[in-house]
């Protein structure tokens, strides 16, 4: 009985996003830019621009594991393994934020939250259903974006350079640990903020604070300052997962019917 109730809340929340064309578009536009547009630009420009001797010298300083059969391929592999994953920190944050803002603040704004609270589920169960709905959508968007990007990259690299790319281990860590963890963090932050936020926009703004550090990290990666090894990445992932877990538990404690409806 409870399972049916929780399942239908999740379904309703996800449907609430997919039937809203504006929200649905905003969820997909950024991932498409990140996973199709940017990588394609990289691949084509690397293919067109003649090799710069300075750059080749720079590449030679990287570990042998990164060296590929051609300079072009090495550069693409470098971008694919060290720059593109950063987009996959932003995609789950954006999706989770849009979804969570609509599922919590949006329901409050439209005065449907109170009706939902009158169902025979406990506050905790309703909360879990809603967090899970945001999390599932966020992971679906992230994983499918990843697949799309992989296909686009492989096809382009294959036709332009006649070879295939092998994604590094870092992808595994990013997609299976870091992305889920930070989408949970984004969701809980939005939910915590939703007690105060009076509008969906206001709630989404609080998520911006999450995106900024990641952009900084991105810039760091790009200039080669922050060159994280897989172990560091794994450590970071575990840290994020821990933080997500603690935040989730804390935010749950915070809630009463009264606070939610205020």
């Amino acid at each position: 009985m409870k399972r049916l109730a929780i399942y239908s809340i999740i379904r309703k929340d996800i449907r609430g996003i997919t039937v809203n064309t504006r929200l649905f578009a905003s969820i997909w536009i950024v991932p498409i830019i990140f996973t199709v547009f940017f990588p394609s630009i990289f691949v084509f420009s690397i293919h067109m621009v003649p090799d710069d001797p300075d750059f080749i010298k720079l590449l030679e300083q990287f570990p042998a594991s990164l060296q590929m059969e051609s300079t072009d391929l090495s550069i693409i592999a470098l971008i694919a393994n060290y720059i593109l994953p950063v987009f996959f920190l932003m995609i789950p944050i954006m999706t989770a934020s849009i979804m969570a803002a609509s599922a919590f603040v949006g329901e409050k704004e439209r005065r449907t939250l109170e009706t939902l609270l009158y169902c025979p589920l406990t506050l905790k169960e309703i909360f879990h259903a809603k967090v899970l709905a945001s999390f599932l959508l966020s992971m679906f968007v992230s994983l499918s974006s990843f697949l799309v990007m992989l296909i686009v990259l492989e096809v382009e690299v294959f036709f332009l350079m006649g070879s295939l790319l092998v994604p590094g281990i870092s992808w595994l860590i990013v997609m299976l640990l870091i992305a889920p963890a930070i989408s949970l963090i984004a969701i809980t932050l939005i939910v915590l903020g939703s007690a105060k936020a009076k509008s969906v926009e206001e709630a989404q703004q609080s998520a911006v604070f999450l995106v900024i550090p990641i952009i900084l990290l991105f810039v760091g990666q790009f200039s080669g300052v922050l060159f994280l090894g897989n172990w560091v990445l794994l450590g970071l992932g575990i840290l994020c997962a821990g933080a997500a877990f603690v935040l989730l538990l804390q935010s749950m404690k915070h809630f009463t019917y009264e606070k939610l409806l205020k």
Partner: protein
Amino acid sequence: MQAITIQNLSKTYETGKEAVKNLSLSLEAGEVFGFLGPNGAGKTTTVKLLTGILTPTSGTCRVFDLDPQTEANRVHAVSGIVTEHAQMYDHLTAMENLMFYASTFGINRSEAKKRSETLLAEFELTDAKDQKLASFSTGMRQRLSLARALIHRPSILFLDEPTSGLDPENAQRVHQMIRKLASEEHIAVFLCTHQLRYAQEVCTRYGLMDEGTLLVTGTLEELRTSTFSGQTLSIRADRLPAGLPFVSCGDSFYTTSIRSEQEIPDLIRTLVAQGVNLYEVSVKKPSLEDIYFALTAKQTEGF
């Protein structure tokens, strides 16, 4: 079992506003209780305390022996709740909305469909069942809210201003449905409204609230006898009768107050003997509004 028991319930908001002061009352199953009072009297606050949305400052309340504080979800399982702020989804149709709320109560699809169709028919919404709620009028929304509150066959209905924003015709319809529900399905109804005139036609018992305080409870007859010592006899005649305590109230109407019906035959005989032409004789009983104003006036005078 009592549907509701409230003992010394008080709620003071963070702002310092004492919205409910030391409220005690009880409600039997099958009763339609009219919880009446002007805006700001504390009605909504009481409903929120009974449904577990608010925490009382002191005192206790129980709904079918469940504590809304610790087991709100179990209170919700036996309650149908309609409040002004409990809206449904605009992007879903009437049917989809009902199906969704049914599923949150653990009702499976086929049963939910049957139940929704019955309720939609009962509330005259069958023609609109596949329309999105965005296109619904206030009256239709209100009726759908009632249908939604009944989807899980609750034992008690909390209705907070169910007719606010409705025209008299729609309000009448909603009230007829409430009365029918109570008599046919034996549901207890806790009806909050500031429209005393409407409430008089619906409820079996009343509680009058003013500024967080429960002034009085009882049936209409009980309230009448406890508030007014008598009734008003009103006649339409061609002239003011002499020597009798009638006062003119315009348009050939004259009134006097009497202690009981037994006084009427003698009065009429005297009038006829005087040669007064009588066109109409009626006994006016005080309405809920009369009672309410008499009580609040007493309050301000007496205390």
